[in-house]
C-alpha cells in the first residue's frame, strides 16, 4: 500500500462561489485562493449538501445527507452512533487527526474526534489564530503518523453579524465615503419589501455596502488561508499533503435581493471547491462539467486516506479521479441538495437545468446555461415541465438511496416533519 498522504482540509463559512478573483470577480481580490486555483483543480459546479452551517458540516464529516444525519437545520443534534471523519481516519487509517477553528456540529464535541489545537470559529477575532495554530502544528509536528489537519475558518460569515446597535447597520454609513469603491448590485437584484426584517428599509447604498464589506471579509480570510497554504507549500510536508478547500454554503450577496443562506438558488447553494496535490493533481485545472455535492468531500478524503467509506455513505463519490485527470464513467448525472428551513425545499441540478421543489408544492425551474442568474422561471413552459418530470425521477432515485433519519429531536421538530412527510409522500408515488 502506498504511503498515506497528509490531508489538509480548509473550510470557510458562507462563501459565495464566485467570491474568488481567479473566477473573474473584479470586486474582490483573493491572491491566495487564486494561487490555490492555479496550483490544483477547481471544481466550479460544486454544491453544498444543505446550505446552512450545521447540516452542511455534519454532511462533510459523516458522508450523510441532511435528512440522514439528524441535523436537518442548525442546532439539531447529530445522531450519536454515526462515526465522523476524525474518528474514522483515526481508526482505519491511523491518522493524527487535528482540528482548529469552527466545528459547529451539535451533539458532537470536536474533542471526541480530533486533537483540538485552537478555539472556535470567530472570524475577525480568531481566524488569524486558526491559521497560526495550524502553522504552529506544521512547524513542530514530528509524529510518524500521517495527519488530517482541519482548518475551520469562520469568515466571511461575519457578514451575518453587522456590528451595530439595535440591529442597526454598524458602519454602513461609511458607504458614503467610499462610494466609488462600492460594487454594483447584482443584475438579478430585486427589492422585496417583505424580505428579511434585517434588510427592510435598506437603500441601494446599504445593499452595495453589504457587498463591499462582504468582499473585505473574504479578503481577510484569504490572507489567513494564504499564510497557512504557504507554510504548507514550503514545508517538508508539501509534496505529500493533499489540500481540500471548500465552503459550507454561499451567501445571498444581494442576488435575488437576498442575504444569507438556507435556500437553493445558486448564491446560497453553490460553493467553491479546490483540490491540490503536487505531482498528482495537474495544476491549473478547471472543471465546470462535473457536478459535485458536499458529501463528495467525505468520499474524497476517505479515498486519499485509503480507508473505506463511512457507513451507509450512498451518495458521495470521490473527486480524486476527476482531479487527477483519470477517466470516470459513473459520475453524478445530477446532484440533490436539501434545505429544511421554513417550508422546505429540495434542489435538483443536472447538466443544464435546476429544479427547486418546495415541500409545500410549487416548483421553480431554471436553465442555468441560458439563465445563470435564475431570472426566468420555466415552470409553466413545456421545456420546464419536461425538466421537472426528469428531475422528479432523479429525486425518487435519490430518496431510494437515503436512510432517512426519523428520530426527531425536540429542537426544531418541524424541520424533521418537513422532510419526513415530503419523502414519505415521494416514496408512495406522490408528485412533488
Amino acid at each position, binding site marked *: 500500500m502506498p504511503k498515506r498522504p497528509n490531508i489538509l482540509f480548509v473550510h470557510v463559512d458562507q462563501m459565495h462561489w464566485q467570491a474568488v478573483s481567479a473566477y473573474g470577480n473584479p470586486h474582490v481580490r483573493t491572491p491566495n485562493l487564486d494561487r490555490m486555483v492555479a496550483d490544483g483543480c477547481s471544481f466550479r459546479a460544486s454544491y453544498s449538501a444543505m446550505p446552512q452551517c450545521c447540516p452542511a458540516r455534519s454532511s462533510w464529516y459523516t458522508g450523510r445527507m441532511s435528512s440522514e444525519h439528524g441535523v436537518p437545520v442548525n442546532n439539531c443534534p447529530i445522531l450519536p452512533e454515526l462515526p465522523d471523519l476524525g474518528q474514522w481516519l483515526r481508526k482505519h487509517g491511523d491518522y493524527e487527526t487535528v482540528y482548529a477553528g469552527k466545528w459547529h456540529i451539535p451533539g458532537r464535541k470536536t474533542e471526541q474526534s480530533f486533537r483540538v*489545537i485552537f478555539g472556535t470559529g470567530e472570524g*475577525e477575532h480568531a481566524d488569524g489564530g486558526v491559521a*497560526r495554530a495550524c502553522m*504552529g502544528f506544521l512547524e513542530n509536528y514530528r509524529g510518524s503518523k500521517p495527519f488530517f489537519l482541519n482548518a475551520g475558518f469562520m469568515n466571511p460569515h461575519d457578514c451575518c453579524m453587522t456590528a451595530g446597535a439595535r440591529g442597526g*447597520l*454598524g458602519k454602513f454609513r461609511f458607504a458614503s465615503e467610499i462610494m466609488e469603491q462600492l460594487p454594483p448590485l447584482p443584475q438579478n437584484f430585486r427589492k422585496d419589501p417583505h424580505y428579511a426584517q434585517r434588510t427592510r428599509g435598506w437603500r441601494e447604498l446599504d445593499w452595495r455596502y453589504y457587498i463591499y464589506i462582504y468582499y473585505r471579509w473574504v479578503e481577510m480570510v484569504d490572507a489567513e488561508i494564504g499564510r497557512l497554504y504557504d507554510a504548507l507549500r514550503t514545508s517538508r510536508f508539501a509534496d505529500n499533503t493533499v489540500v481540500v478547500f471548500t465552503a459550507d454554503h454561499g451567501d445571498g450577496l444581494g442576488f435575488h435581493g437576498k442575504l444569507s443562506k438556507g435556500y437553493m438558488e445558486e448564491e446560497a447553494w453553490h460553493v467553491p471547491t479546490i483540490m491540490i496535490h503536487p505531482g498528482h493533481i495537474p495544476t491549473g485545472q478547471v472543471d465546470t462539467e462535473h457536478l459535485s455535492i458536499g458529501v463528495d468531500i467525505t468520499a474524497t478524503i476517505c479515498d486519499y486516506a485509503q480507508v473505506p467509506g463511512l457507513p451507509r455513505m450512498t451518495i458521495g463519490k470521490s473527486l480524486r479521479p476527476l482531479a487527477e485527470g483519470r477517466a470516470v464513467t459513473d459520475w453524478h448525472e445530477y446532484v440533490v441538495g436539501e434545505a429544511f428551513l421554513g417550508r422546505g425545499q429540495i434542489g435538483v441540478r443536472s447538466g443544464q437545468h435546476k429544479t427547486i421543489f418546495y415541500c409545500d408544492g410549487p416548483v421553480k425551474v431554471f436553465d442555468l446555461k441560458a439563465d445563470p442568474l435564475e431570472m426566468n422561471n420555466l415552470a409553466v413552459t413545456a421545456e420546464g415541465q419536461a425538466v421537472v418530470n426528469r428531475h422528479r425521477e432523479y429525486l425518487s432515485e435519490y430518496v431510494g438511496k437515503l436512510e432517512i433519519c426519523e428520530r426527531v429531536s425536540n429542537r426544531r421538530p418541524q424541520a424533521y416533519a418537513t422532510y419526513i412527510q415530503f419523502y414519505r409522500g415521494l416514496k408512495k408515488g406522490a408528485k412533488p
Partner: protein
Amino acid sequence: MKRRDFLALATTTAAALAAEGFLPVLAAEGTSKRPARNGQGHRKPGPLSNGTNIFTEPCAIEPVTGYLPAFAPIASGAMQDGFTASYSLIAWKKAAAISTNRVRGSLRIRLAEGQYETRETRTSKKANTVRTTMHCARDLNTVKSWRLESSIAGEEELRFVEEGVWDGTIMTVKAKSWSQQRTTTHPLIARWALLPLLASGRLKNRPLRFDMLDDSTLRPDQTLRYSGEIEIPVKGGKAKLDSYAQAGQGIVPTHYLVDRDGRVQLITMSHVNWALSALNN
C-alpha cells in the same frame, strides 16, 4: 463609577435615546421625535439605516457603544516618540439597544528609538498570543524588519517564530519550516506603527496610501484619511475626537479616534476593536 459620573452619563444617554425615540414610552407612541440633522432632513423612525439610531452617526463608534459608558479616555502621555500604550480588545458580541461588548484580549505597544515591541493576546477557547519586535524607518514608520512569535496557551508545540524583512518592494517571511514572499506596491507600514503618524497630525491634511503589515500578512492598498471631528459619549460625559478612517483590501473599514493631544483613544473595526487603557512615556 462615581455617582455624579453615573448621573451625567445616564442623563446623556437617556436624553440621546429619548431624542431617538428609543425609550419605551416614546417608542410606543410610534412617532419620531428626532430633529433634522446635518441638512439631511427628517427621516422615518426605525432601527435600520433609514432609522433613528443615535449611534449610527458617527458610525465610527457603532461597534463599541456598549463599552463607551465605561470608557474613560486617557488624559496624559503622548504617542509620538517613546511610549508604552496598552489597549483592551473590545469584542462586539451582538446588537441590542446598544452593542453588546466585552473585553476579550489585550495589546501592549512599546515604541523606543525606531523599534516597536508588541504583545497581543486574544482569548478564545485557547488564548493566542502574538509578540512582535519590529524595526522601522524614521520617515513614515515603514517596516524594515520584524520578528514574530506566536504561541497558543497550553500548546507549547504550536509555538513558532517568523522573521521578516521588507526591501522596499518584496516582503519576505521565514520560519524554521517555511518561507513566504509578497510583493508590495506602496510603503509597508504595520498597523500599530500608524499610531505615531496619527498622533503627529501629519495625516490631517494629506491622506496616506500604504500597504499594511498585519501580523505577517499583507493587506495591500490601504488609504487612511482624516474624516473630521466627532463627539462621542464616554464615561461621565462626551469627548471630542478627530476621526481618521482607513479602508482597503483585506480589512474592514477602520476608524482611529484621536484626541487633541494625539492619543489614539479608540480603534474600531467591526467585531474587534481597541480601547486605550494606559499610556506611559
